[in-house]
């Protein structure tokens, strides 16, 4: 096989999520940065949850056309959970002389789907079934970090400081909003933030400094999720982000960034869509202007958090920091940071190509480790049941 043994990587993007468009941008950046040693298979999941592949999906311009998925060079595709396909089935329902379902084998899956049905462990569950190495957090870590309430409980357990909060479900609120209000006011001083438990970005997030605003914000948040948490706002703080990559014992934290768009309110438009060029043009300071010891401390916490949530691959850990007091609160973990935090890693001396190489390597390591712990355990149960069944039949025959 003197012909190239190129690694085929499927980049999955889009998705049934409010962050559908962001994912397209991330995926295009990723595919552009992909080193030549990889063969890229773009897999686009539409807003409705339909899956497609085709080279036309590698060009951002094409997505301006609403009918991109009906182009002749774009075909339906299915990720097979059957281990023997080790990849996709192109044109799964095709029948005819010229169009037939075809297996498209891939070596590694690279999900670039943000938010729901992407970062929450559901997609990763399918990957596990398909038994294909994949980049990023596994099922548990994805599901966990997707849920702000559960993440904070695990981080507290690991000794990592997070902002105080009160959380409750839609049912609790509907049954007795007043006592829930009382509980919040008892625990947290104004101002507070109200957040849906599982949504990414800032959608449904509200800031409140009085009862009326708090009630309204909770109603809004409960429209997006079944569970909601209310956190006390960390005043006089700056937002600091740190990306971590790695697997097992091999962990690395990036330099820190300080986004400058932090104001009174985290508007969705502000976070992702400022300017015309998307996320990269967001105003930020790299490295963040903090004391070196504080920076190192934050990087250390980021790595500990990564391990606490069973991380692998890449994440961006967002902190709220009070530089004067030296107080650091972990705000959230993004298992698929926008733009894959390329800008942070380039500033840390890891160019995008190398970053991708490493993420692919971690994916393969994780897969290899999974293989090491799975043994073909042939149970004698079936053969025993069969023999004794036959014996039973024989016995009844002789008795008859």
């Amino acid at each position, binding site marked *: *096989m*003197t*012909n190239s*043994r190129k690694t085929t990587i499927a980049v999955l993007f889009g998705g049934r999520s409010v962050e559908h468009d962001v994912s397209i941008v991330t995926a295009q950046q990723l595919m552009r940065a992909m080193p030549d040693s990889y063969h890229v298979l773009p897999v686009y999941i539409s807003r409705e949850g339909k899956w497609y592949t085709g080279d036309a999906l590698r060009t951002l311009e094409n997505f301006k056309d609403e009918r991109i998925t009906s182009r002749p060079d774009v075909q339906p595709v299915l990720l097979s959970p059957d*281990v*023997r*396909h*080790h*990849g996709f089935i192109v044109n799964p329902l095709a029948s005819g002389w010229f169009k037939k379902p075809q*297996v498209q*084998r891939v070596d590694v899956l690279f999900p670039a789907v943000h938010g729901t049905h992407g970062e929450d462990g559901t997609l990763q569950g399918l990957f596990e079934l398909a*038994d*294909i190495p994949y980049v990023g957090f596994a099922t548990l870590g994805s599901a966990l970090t997707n849920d702000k309430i559960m993440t904070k409980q695990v981080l507290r357990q690991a000794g990592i400081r997070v902002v105080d909060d009160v959380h409750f479900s839609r049912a609790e609120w509907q049954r007795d909003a007043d006592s829930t209000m009382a509980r919040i006011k008892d625990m947290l001083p104004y101002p507070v933030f109200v957040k849906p438990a599982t949504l990414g970005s800032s959608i449904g997030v509200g800031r409140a400094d009085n009862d009326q605003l708090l009630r309204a914000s909770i109603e809004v948040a409960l429209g997006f999720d079944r569970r909601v948490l209310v956190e006390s706002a960390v005043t006089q703080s700056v937002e600091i982000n740190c990306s971590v990559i790695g697997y097992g014992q091999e962990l690395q934290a990036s330099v820190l960034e300080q986004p400058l768009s932090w104001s009174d309110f985290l508007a969705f438009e502000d976070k992702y869509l400022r300017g015309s060029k998307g996320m990269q043009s967001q105003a930020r300071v790299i490295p963040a202007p903090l004391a070196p010891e504080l920076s190192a401390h934050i990087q250390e916490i980021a790595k500990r958090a990564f391990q606490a949530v069973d991380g692998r691959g890449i994440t961006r850990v967002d902190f709220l920091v009070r530089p004067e007091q030296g107080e650091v609160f972990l705000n959230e973990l993004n298992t698929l940071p926008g733009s894959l935090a390329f800008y942070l890693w380039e500033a840390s001396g890891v160019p995008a190509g190398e970053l991708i190489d490493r993420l692919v390597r971690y994916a393969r390591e994780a897969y*290899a480790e999974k*293989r*090491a712990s799975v*043994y073909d355990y042939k149970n004698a149960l079936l053969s025993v049941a069969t023999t004794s069944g036959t014996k039973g039949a024989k016995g009844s025959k002789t008795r008859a």
Partner: protein
Amino acid sequence: MSLLLIALLWLVWTGGTVWRVYKQARYYQIEEYKSGRYARWLLRERSRWLPMHTLAAVGLAVIFSLLGDSVPSDFSALPYTAAIIGAVLAVRPPREAPVKKAFNATDRAKRLLAAAWVLVALAAFGAFALLQAQAFTSDRANAIAHLLGGLGVFLLAPLWLVLGNAVMTPVEAMLRRRFVQKAKGVLKTINPKIIGITGSYGKTTTKHFLRDILNGRYKTYATPKSYNTMMGICLAINTDLADDYSVEYFISEMGAYIPGEIARICELTPPDISIVVEVGPQHLERFGSLENVAIAKYEIIKNLRPDGLGVFNWDNLYVRAMHDKGYPAKRIAVSKTVDPASISDGVPRFVATDIVLTVTGLTFTVHDTQTGASVPFVTPLVGEHNVTNLLLATAVAVHEGMTLEAVAQRVSRLQPAESRLVRQHDERGVLIINDAYSANPVGAKSALEVLGLYQSGRRVLITPGMIELGELHDQENHRLGVLAAQVATDIVLVGAKQTAPIQAGVRSTGFPVDRLHIFDHTQDALAWYRANLTRGDTVLLLNDLPDTYTN
């Protein structure tokens, strides 16, 4: 009327020939459709090509025919009747011993049979037409002529088979090319790393070990059983691999019966990694000399890509010589005899020491002389030769990124390959050690060592001896006899003639004669075992012969 009877006579002969061709096809198949080998097998015993009862039946029929009327004008039924009865008796197949290896009705065998049968029909019709044209005047002469003509067609059954094969050769070649082409396509799609293993013996075992070890990190597929020919490997690719796109490593055993065969297999499955297990006297009669065997095996190294990896068994001098030729650049040698302290240049790299053989398995220590690491290995496998097989598999696994510890972990869970030193108790509690698949000097020695570990009751060796060792046949079998006498309490040999060197070896040690049992048929040996052994006894079954050697 006479024409009708003659037609009937020919029907009997043709039917008989068709049946005989079918029966012969089994032996032709065992000889791998090699006409020369088949002819040699055929000629070894007269009854195979010239059955006595056929000659007797035809002879009697001729005599009875002669009693018939010779007057040209009158029709006489007697000669024809005698001829037909004679033919019926002549084609009646002899009673056969139960077969161990049945005819395998592969597609190729079916095509061959069809071709041979067409030839039989053509020959029968040709002979019939030829004799009709003679226009014999007496019924007697007419009947006898056709009777003898039919006998000829019948006796030439092996020829029709061989000719049928010759006719089908271009067709088979075309079908094979297509099959190979398909396999190449499958390999190109799935694109796994390819590991080739060759050696006079130990190939299959090493293959299975390597598959089970590598599977702890990579999805690994190995060709099933001992598929080691071009077509066997293609079959594995086209059936198993074509159905599983997840395979990352493809391990293929490459056997050689003739020089150039491995090179051809390498063209289909160009190895990224090649392993040479052993060069020994297996199939020596086909190669002539051990040097020729080594040249044939070296093809697996010669056909590696320049950046490929060669893995060598340092303990075999022929294999060590391959290592020392210096190709490819990346080479790993393994040994279970060298003292690791004496190695300074990392060659051989993986060395086993402190090898202890117990009833429950093997323990030994593996040293990586390049890193200085050493890890204890424990396996439920028996047979010291498995240490070499495991070292070879370890070398590949470590090269592909597994740690020595991870390899040791996998090794502790290995199971012996199918029917290679498998141990199980029969229904009466006699322990059977089965090494029935393939016996070679190295494996036989290991198996006998294992037999020697059992001290609870009688230790019995049952064997027909080792075959296909060429000029070393007598010497190696004599040595087997000596070894067996040291270990076993009873020795049961199958086949008085072919086991003569073993008998000589056994006797040379002063082994009690009444403990040496010789039978002509496997069935008799098994009957002895059933009648004489009980709980606590141990039996080693060494080598199982194809029917061509016992019939």
